[in-house]
């Protein structure tokens, strides 16, 4: 079984973004970029399907292909995925913003060329927080989807997936080929070892463009303003629980 994993390059999750003073966008210059944490979980799951582990039999996956859509530097994100254990990468070079709909259309093209049996994505990218790409891709392909996965069990032509939903957990079966999106509890990604980081440098990365898949990446939505969020008034420290209860009474919340 071949598994495809789209990975996105995003601002490192430890960093706080700054809004440009003129409101034209956010300032990402000189900030550390990393692989989106949910995509890292997706790669880890695919690699476990190959190596055995996480409940998967060894060789459940025979090949793991990572794909990223982004600027030249998204190469680093792919190398990151290759260091975790993906076999090869595809970089679809696109500068500027690419909305999930266009990302999904490009991925559809990649999938038609690569013919994977399973595609694992992150449930959301921590920059734009759209939580959309996986579902859009599933619709474009007319494939079933299992989003927000916390457990994946492969069995023949099906995957049984436990999903994190409001109120608890839901388990569904999807026929393969299928789209899965990862939630936080699916696995804990490994730290890539130095030898694997070195090995990753030699793994192949194909270069493509959106035009290769006939996709127009012009954004559909226009961002007219980017603003700082409203700031909360600084509060006070109370010394005792009695004082706290007094304040809460005054505020009318108890």
């Amino acid at each position, binding site marked *: 079984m071949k598994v495809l994993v789209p990975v996105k390059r995003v601002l490192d999750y430890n960093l*706080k973004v700054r809004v440009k003073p003129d409101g034209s966008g956010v300032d990402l210059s000189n900030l550390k970029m990393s692989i989106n944490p949910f995509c890292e979980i997706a790669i880890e799951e695919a690699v476990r399907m190959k190596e055995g582990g996480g409940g998967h039999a060894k060789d459940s996956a025979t090949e793991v292909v990572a794909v990223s859509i982004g600027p030249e530097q998204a190469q680093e994100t792919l190398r990151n995925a290759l260091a975790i254990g993906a076999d090869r990468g595809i970089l679809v070079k696109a500068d500027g913003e690419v909305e999930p709909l266009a990302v999904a259309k490009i991925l559809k093209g990649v999938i038609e060329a690569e013919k994977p049996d399973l595609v694992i994505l992150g449930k959301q990218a921590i*920059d734009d927080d*759209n939580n959309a790409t996986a579902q859009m891709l599933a619709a474009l392909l007319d494939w079933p*989807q299992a989003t927000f996965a916390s457990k994946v069990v492969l069995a023949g032509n099906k995957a049984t997936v436990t999903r994190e939903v*409001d109120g608890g957990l839901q388990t569904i079966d999807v026929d393969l080929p299928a789209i899965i999106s990862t939630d936080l509890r699916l696995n804990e990604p490994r730290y890539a070892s130095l030898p694997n980081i070195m090995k990753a440098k030699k793994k192949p990365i194909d270069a493509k463009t959106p035009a290769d898949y006939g996709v127009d990446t012009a954004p559909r*939505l226009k961002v007219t303003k980017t603003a700082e969020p409203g700031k909360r008034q600084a509060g006070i*420290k109370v010394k005792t629980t009695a004082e706290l209860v007094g304040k809460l009474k005054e505020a009318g919340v108890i």
Partner: protein
Amino acid sequence: MAVLVVAEHDNASVKDATNKVVTAATAMGADVDVLVAGSNAGGAAAAAAKIDGVRKVLHADGATLAKQMAEPLEALIVPLMSGYDAVLFPASTTGKNAAPRVAAKLDVMQVSGVIGIEGADTFVRPIYAGNAIITVQDSQPKKVLVVQPTAFKAAGNGGSASVEATAAPAGPFKSAFVSEEMAKSDRPELTAAKRIVSGGRALGSSEEFHKVLEPLADKLGAAVGASRAAVDAGYAPNDYQVGQTGKVVAPELYVAIGISGAIQHLAGMKDSKVIVAINKDEDAPIFQVADYGLVADYKTAVPELMDELGKAGV
């Protein structure tokens, strides 16, 4: 202009999120219809018909819709969109699961996490865990929005719209429901609760988490939430997680106990009206958003707080 709101419901009744999304739809200056897609969902359809400002309720009922899975919802909603300019989903796991499928089928880029409606085509949403707020102009002929219910007031229940039946999709579909484990609790639902007591890694174990937080939550009539660290460590179930990648909440009172206040956590609760933080580290970032901060060990502070609440007649 006409807008379709996809109801959040449990077949018997509609969730408060539906009333809130109706308010968002009304702000677009449109005629608002509500879709109730479910199985034996007559009760929910009747409840939706009472929401103020609703023109009519579309009620699709059938076995394929019992679990409101993404594929049947797509099959149901896409054809209905010939009669609507926009469709609004609540940002629940059901809404987030289905909306992008509908959008992609309509060849539309959806706007996710909408917290403000500035007109029929101008929407406000947070990016980067709420550290930037963007205004988006959407001039696509059809629009698909996922609305953050906590950002809108709930429409009242004084209406009397008509209910019209519409056919449920037949299938077959390539995904099938197997089972579910839903938490049973008499406490209010996290996203609709007026008060929330939330615990972090400091609680140290599942027993401690429940032993410390539940009596306080019961006293306050509050829902219980958690940080990601507490959920990852197994102290609390996954659907307790508040934050950028969990639930977004905005209660009148949010009490954070042993939570440091990472940006991902703040993204889910900083619109609460009053925030209380109990943390033994006076430099914890949670104090930067707390209205009332108590630097203390929760082990002594929570029992004391219970006593003081008792004395105050709560």
